[in-house]
């Protein structure tokens, strides 16, 4: 199987789900920018929500295991505006009230993407999302995975989605 070609089809449900989640609950449209292969482990934003997943891909009679990770990274300004839009209050600092918001957003994206992934032959088990906050924090990707960075523009500012994916027999 070609892990690289599956990575492209694997990414699409996450992009579609992110657009749906932001339009419905954050009241903003995401404009997808050109994806790039990431060669470092530094976050592009100041607040990152990280969600690991694993499962099996069954396609054309063959089966393999995969592991993947979804990261959604926001500059502070964007995160505060997203939180303000979703929660109906104005936030200007990273307070405990908005700590788990990023985790909830990646949960919703993953939950939505899961339905489309299933029709493509993927089963998926989600881990519990975790949050990282701080300027230029690093993200620990699963060993051996390639990371694709998908930037989005929104009325609240830039948002960065990262996906990594690895197939194993």
């Amino acid at each position, binding site marked *: 199987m070609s892990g690289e070609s599956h990575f492209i089809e694997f990414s699409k449900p996450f992009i579609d789900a992110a657009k*749906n*989640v932001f339009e*419905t*609950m954050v009241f903003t449209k995401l404009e997808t920018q050109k994806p790039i292969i990431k060669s470092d482990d530094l976050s592009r934003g100041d607040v990152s929500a990280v969600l690991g997943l694993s499962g099996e891909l069954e396609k054309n009679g063959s089966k393999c295991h995969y592991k993947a990770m979804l990261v959604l990274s926001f500059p502070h300004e964007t995160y505060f505006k997203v*939180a303000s839009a*979703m*929660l*109906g209050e104005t936030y200007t600092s990273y307070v405990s*009230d*908005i700590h*788990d*918001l990023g*985790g*909830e957003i990646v*949960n*919703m994206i*993953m*939950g*939505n993407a*899961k*339905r489309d992934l*299933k029709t493509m032959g993927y089963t998926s088990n989600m881990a519990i999302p975790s949050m990282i906050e701080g300027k230029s924090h690093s993200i620990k990707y699963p060993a051996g995975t390639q990371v694709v960075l998908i930037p989005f523009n929104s009325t609240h500012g830039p948002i960065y989605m990262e996906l990594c994916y690895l197939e194993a027999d």
Partner: protein
Amino acid sequence: MALKADIKILVVDDMSTMRKIIKNMLSQIGFTNISEADDGATAWPMIEGAIKEGKPYEFIVSDWNMPQLSGLDLLKNVRSTPGLEKLPFLMITAEAEQGNVVIAVKAGVSNFIVKPFSAAVLKEKIDRIFK
């Protein structure tokens, strides 16, 4: 709003931001008497306590995935309690899989809503439950 504004509602979700979003939406729809619990395990004694006080909850809005007692197990507790067999129970989930709907319907859920959702969709689901 055809329903009483002060209908006693319990919102159950382990994520504080989601509880806030749901409460905001319910307030936007016009409801005024909304309590919250951070897990099914926290919600269940509140539901039992409210019955003992003679002021039972009239509507439960619960997330499915919670660490201690899931929304599904909370629903099963509710349905197996005399007097609560028909308590309106709206289940919220992040997972859009059809299998979940079937499981929840079999357990006696009143309606089902998949995240993300708007206040308009929430109102529509509530209207269907109470019509």
